[in-house]
């Protein structure tokens, strides 16, 4: 049941992310590289949706990117610690979908997951399979 809810929310986010990214970049030049696209997600996209930039971006240069938001907007009202941790995935699925959808609109297939150990800090991992 919970998995079903999470996957529905993820799909809703994906639809929204796709349209949003298209509207955002309608009048702008194409991106140069994959990293440029990821940077766009961390800056303009994040600021537009969450009113702040991400706090850190790391990559292994093999298609895995980890975005850290140490005060993730959807969690700041919820907890400053471990309370409600078990409910966090439901409130992150939509955002994972949002990122996956935005990347898809630039032609990138990805898997996006979220991880929280202490709220409101959250890590989003983007994996782009290399073909």
């Amino acid at each position, binding site marked *: 049941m919970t998995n079903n809810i999470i996957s529905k929310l993820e799909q*809703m986010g994906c*639809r*929204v992310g796709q349209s*949003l990214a298209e509207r*955002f970049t309608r009048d702008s*030049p194409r991106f140069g*590289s994959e990293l440029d696209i990821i940077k766009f997600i961390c800056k303009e996209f994040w600021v537009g*949706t969450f*009113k702040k930039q991400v706090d850190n971006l790391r990559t292994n240069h093999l298609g895995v990117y980890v975005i850290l938001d140490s005060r993730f907007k959807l969690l700041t009202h919820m907890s400053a610690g471990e309370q409600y941790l078990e409910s966090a995935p439901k409130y992150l699925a*939509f955002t994972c979908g949002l990122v996956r959808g935005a990347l898809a609109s630039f032609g990138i297939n990805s898997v996006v997951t979220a991880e929280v150990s202490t709220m409101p800090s959250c890590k989003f991992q983007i994996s782009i399979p290399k073909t």
Partner: protein
Amino acid sequence: MARQGGRATDPRKVSQELFTLTYGALVAQLIKDYEQDDEVNKQLDKIGFLFFACRGYNIGVRLIEDFLARSGIGRCNDFRETADVIAKNGFRMFLGITPQVTNWSAAGDEFSLIMDANPLADFVELPDDHNQLNYSNILCGVIRGALESVQMAVDVRFVQDILKGDNQTEIRVKFIKRLEDALPAGEE
């Protein structure tokens, strides 16, 4: 390659689009889950009014607290004042529009909110097989939930919708009764 200019995005516009698109995704998901338009209408109204009833999660009830805290508006003296506050303060704060308050019933217990623009329904066109759908029906639940919190029971429904080919979007609000504070246990 550094890329300047061209990607200037107005954050306010983005959050409005995020909101509108998210609402659209919600309606689309409900259509997938419930199929029948009248069932979707019912669900939308419920989400606005009484979502997760067991937990007391209710969008209208939550929005009114945010509204009262931010606006500092106190109790209304009568239903006309309530109508004005909904249109000029409530809709303004949450949707950025000010519907017209009109078509008062003779008894003064019923009015209409007329919207020229509806941000929830930007970019939306109803497919032919969903002509019974009240796309923005969540607004009914929200108004009902919000007013119940300030001790007013009302009935709210869509009577016209631009999405259905009407000339304007009209929500009808009817006063039913005042609700009283709960008596302390054991008192009559």
